[in-house]
């Protein structure tokens, strides 16, 4: 057993921008977080907040126009950003794997589903013989709740939920230490969503794997993660223990995000939602980028970026945290 106190993943001051026709777009700005072995981290925010860019950065699957301007990504203490592409290829799938949102595009329609996973296993040298690889895939299929006989089917014969499970099985095929799930269940029906989330949770505990969930749905993140980071305009604005963050959000953005989701249980709270439009990344307002949409904004918010402060088990970047009494002198 490795030392549990050493974080598996340490992201330190990561900044990422894209060169576009309209100029440089800063997608990720100075993001730092740690992820312990065997724990689940959630990244939430509106679309365009930079959460998927972080995932692509961890997998080193960045488009040509992306530029990493600063930061380190340490996996077990090793910075993976300067690695050569060949070395990175060894890390991908074996150490870090990813479940994409569009499961349809990951599976090749002309090959049997089982064959594709066996191929992935063999190219990464996890199993040497075909039989061993086949057995491994059968085991993975059972783990994600698919009948191993479905290995012989083609992707188009799978339903959306089955396809997503097959993609999860593929991501698990090389025993990764870290799995990144980018909106893994967004397009699926609630009952299927629930099953896949439960299976992922069980597998994570069983394999002592770390997972990063990327989702716009805070309810999903609230249920399956231990730590959550809320992103706005490329920055982490609040981060901490999931239960604490959602019980007593300090950043007004977190609170606004929570109140824009209707809920089936409990009292029927009025939906307030977020006013205005998501920020334009190439032209952010001065000071706190959230101030044009924030109900608590004052002059200081319009001019200066707020400092990071700790509130109990979480921290936030805000001049006017919601529950000032929560602030712990740290």
């Amino acid at each position, binding site marked *: 057993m490795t030392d549990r106190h050493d974080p598996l993943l340490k992201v330190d001051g990561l900044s990422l921008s894209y060169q576009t*026709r309209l100029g440089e777009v800063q997608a990720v700005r100075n993001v730092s977080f740690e992820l312990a072995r065997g724990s689940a981290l959630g990244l939430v925010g509106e679309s365009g907040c930079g959460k998927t860019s972080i995932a692509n950065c961890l997998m080193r699957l960045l488009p040509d126009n992306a530029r990493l301007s600063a930061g380190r990504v340490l996996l077990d203490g090793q910075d993976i950003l300067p690695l050569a592409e060949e070395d990175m290829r060894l890390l991908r799938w074996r150490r870090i794997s990813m479940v994409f949102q569009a499961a349809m595009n990951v599976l090749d329609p002309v090959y049997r589903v089982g064959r594709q996973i066996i191929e992935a296993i063999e190219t990464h040298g996890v199993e040497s013989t075909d039989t061993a690889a086949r057995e491994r895939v059968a085991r993975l299929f059972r783990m994600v709740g698919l009948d191993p006989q479905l290995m012989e089917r083609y992707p188009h014969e799978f339903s959306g939920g089955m396809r997503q499970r097959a993609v999860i099985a593929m991501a698990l095929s090389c025993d990764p230490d870290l799995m990144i799930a980018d909106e893994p269940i967004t397009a699926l029906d609630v009952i299927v969503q629930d099953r896949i989330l439960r299976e992922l949770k069980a597998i994570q505990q069983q394999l002592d794997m770390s997972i990063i969930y990327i989702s716009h749905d805070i309810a999903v993140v609230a249920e399956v993660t231990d730590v959550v980071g809320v992103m706005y305009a490329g920055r982490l604005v609040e981060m901490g223990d999931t239960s604490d963050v959602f019980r007593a959000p300090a950043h007004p953005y977190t609170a606004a995000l929570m109140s824009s989701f209707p809920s089936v249980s409990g009292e029927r709270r009025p939906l307030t939602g977020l006013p205005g439009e998501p920020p334009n990344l190439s032209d952010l307002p001065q000071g706190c980028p959230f101030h044009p949409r924030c109900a608590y904004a004052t002059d200081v918010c319009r001019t200066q970026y707020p400092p990071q402060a700790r509130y109990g088990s979480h921290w936030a970047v805000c001049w006017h945290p919601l529950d000032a009494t929560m602030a712990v002198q740290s």
Partner: protein
Amino acid sequence: MNTPVPVGPVPTPESGVEPGRGRVRFVLARLRLMWRSFRNGWGIFMDSRIGMLSLFTIIAFALMAAAHPILMAFVWDPATYDPVTGYSFDQVEQPAPPSWKHPLGTDPLGRDVLSQLLYSTRSEFVLGITAALVTVGIATFVGAVAAYYGRLLDAFFMRLADLIIALPAISLLIVLSALFHLNLFYLALIIGVLGGFGGTAIILKSQALSIKVKPFIEAARVAGGGHFHIIFVHIIPHLLPLALLYMMFTVTSAIFAEAVLSFLGLLDIRMSWGIMIHTANTGGYLLGGTRYWWLIVPAGASITLLCSAFYLAGRALDEVVNPRLRRRND
């Protein structure tokens, strides 16, 4: 009932239409929009080097066509230079090689080749553009109607198209020209009708099918739009860019078909590039190799150049019309 919203009275369909100040402002705004989208498209077209080259070639030929009547009226003596009835008395031997008086020489019947070339350019344009307009007019309508109504109408038009494609066009034209006296206009009409009910209709129909299933067609139906409204306002405008593209290709095939038929001497036309080569051929000068090059090269090169210019301009337009083909230059 509920308190009415402050919305004006709902008028009956019969309420009078009076042109107000709104209309002028309105038309201006629309013209501005059209100008803007034209400028965008033009920008993309200009990026294509081949497109610009073809455009210049087409313009050069257009200038040639325009030059002929001017030259005939002010510079050239009709008795010598008329492309059909002229005769160059100053030459000892016909055909005469290029000289100062006859920059491209004379043909076996003593007529000026340059004059013939310029005169024919105009007919080639008229032929190509008429055929293209007829083709695209028919194909757009047939494609839209077949896709929109489907079923029997679709089956009928598509089988008709299959039939026309299966017929070898040139052979059919040869048979038709034996039966009727085909002049330039009828030839354009026949090529147009064959193209319009043939392959172009199938291509535009498949495009129309992809438009027909878009939710905005359903939205237009819910708004109360009839079949006519949907076909002309929502489907056909989406076919026009592709139709424009096929217009270019039709011009190419029409000029080419005319050249072949004229070469075989089957058309009731006074003068054309095809006839120029035909004249050279009937005099036996095609067998003379490069010795009598001025009888063949000007007309042959013009056919090749103008055909490829229209074709390549079409390819460049394709890039304007079809964003997926555009090179990413960011």
